[in-house]
């Protein structure tokens, strides 16, 4: 299957996504803000529609509009501290409204199904370069902000008093979430991107390790989810998004079962010794 150029591109993008999604997901899940991923994924559909309508690369369109909505969410979150989830509903409604209106009115002369469900057939070389550039920039920024982000999500008040620019970092993080979603939508699909952000980390959290090991396990699980999802989708001729989501859930269930067995078997084995 690797004799095809699109498959090589898809596989390379998959590797980048498998690193970026859990990296962003770790901070979102621990901030208890996983739904932001879902909201921005829907916002990216509006970006794709605007991009296709204005003959701009849809991934770039998705990145610009999703970044804008990400910054708006962060701004409103500070203003309506006790109603953060309500802001997500407002942005989700607005962006889905824009997307459906543009697509259903015929203003967009293209099929958006590949962005909804994910597709490995439509990955062009131009997409590959754009996704690679966005990924590398995102990875560089996260590596620079890694410890500050870790400090902030563990103890935001403490970080503020210690002189960390919490406000600025939260805005940058919103744009990083937007970039990750834009990078991932073509392979994974808008409908399941949020699961890929949250599920590998949810799986890794079951292992009850420290921050760094949890993150590394998250990346490993994400890699298994995406790569096996792409291979399976190729063989059964299905959209990769759905297969990746199914693999993610099964892997989570597998790890949960394994942990239960270890918890129960541990004391029995000790007694037997």
């Amino acid at each position, binding site marked *: 299957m690797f004799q095809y150029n699109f498959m090589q591109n898809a596989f390379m993008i998959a590797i980048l996504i498998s690193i970026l999604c859990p990296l962003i997901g770790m901070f979102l899940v621990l901030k208890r803000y996983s739904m932001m991923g879902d909201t921005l994924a829907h916002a990216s559909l509006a970006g794709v529609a605007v991009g296709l309508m204005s003959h701009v690369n849809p991934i770039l369109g998705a990145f610009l509009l999703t970044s804008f909505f990400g910054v708006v969410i962060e701004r409103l979150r500070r203003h309506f501290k006790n109603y953060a989830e309500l802001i997500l509903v407002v942005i989700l409604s607005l962006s889905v409204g824009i997307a459906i209106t543009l697509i259903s009115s015929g203003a967009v002369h293209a099929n958006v199904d590949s962005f909804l469900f994910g597709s490995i057939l439509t990955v062009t070389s131009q997409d590959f370069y754009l996704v690679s550039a966005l990924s590398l920039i995102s990875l560089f920024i996260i590596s620079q902000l890694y410890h500050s982000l*870790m400090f902030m999500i*563990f103890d935001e008040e403490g970080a503020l008093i210690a002189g960390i620019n919490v406000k600025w970092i939260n805005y940058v993080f919103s744009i990083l979430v937007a970039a990750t979603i834009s990078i991932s939508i073509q392979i994974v699909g808008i409908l399941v991107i949020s699961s890929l952000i949250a599920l590998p980390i949810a799986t890794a*959290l079951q292992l009850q390790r420290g921050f760094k090991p949890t993150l590394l396990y998250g990346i490993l699980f994400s890699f298994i989810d995406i790569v096996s999802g792409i291979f399976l989708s190729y063989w059964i001729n299905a959209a990769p998004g759905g297969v990746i989501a199914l693999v993610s859930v099964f892997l989570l269930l597998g790890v949960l079962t394994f942990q239960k067995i270890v918890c129960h078997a541990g004391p029995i084995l000790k007694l037997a010794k």
Partner: protein
Amino acid sequence: MLQIKNLSFSYGNTPYILNNLNFELSDGKYISILGENGSGKSTLIKLILGLLTPTKGTIQNTFQQTAYVSQRFESLNKQFPITVKEVLTCYQKARHLPGSNLIAESLALVNMQEYADALIGTLSGGQFQKIFIARAVMGNPDLLVLDEPSNGIDIKSQNEIYQLIRSLNREKHITVICVEHNLKAAIRNSHLLYHMSNGIGHMCNPKNYIKEYLMENTGVEEYVSI
């Protein structure tokens, strides 16, 4: 030095939570802020830390570096995947604090070297508080602010924590502001007591606090036994 002059605070158009507070805290002192729930202690702390802006009056803070130990144990997510070492590492790296041995030194200060790889959720309240004090003093602060450091902690750990805070104050000359419910610890350790009631403050001498202030204002004889 910390100088508070005519400080008043209210949230929006609500009545004043703090009403015309005045006090001065010179370098190297240990002050405990006492008072009932809702008396305005936490609001005063937030103002000192710069998290809130005074409605009236001024706070002049000439300390170079302020560290804060919040009352976090109760609200901590026990499932949070972070080890003791990672808590200290992210603080050091995020604040660009120099020192390759800083984490080991900080753990040694609170006598918790063997807990470096323990998950934070597995620690007891006393151990957790010690780690947060170790983290707070990593950057050599000259002002340490603590919010009820003995809350929910057993007696043995309380004694260890107060001994630690006292040694930071007396030996390392770190000025301490401590919000307290533990009257015994406040009287034993502090140079000054600041009693708050309904947003109004009153500075007292720890030695005469019970006789001069509490008994006169409340008439409760049982304080004499402390």
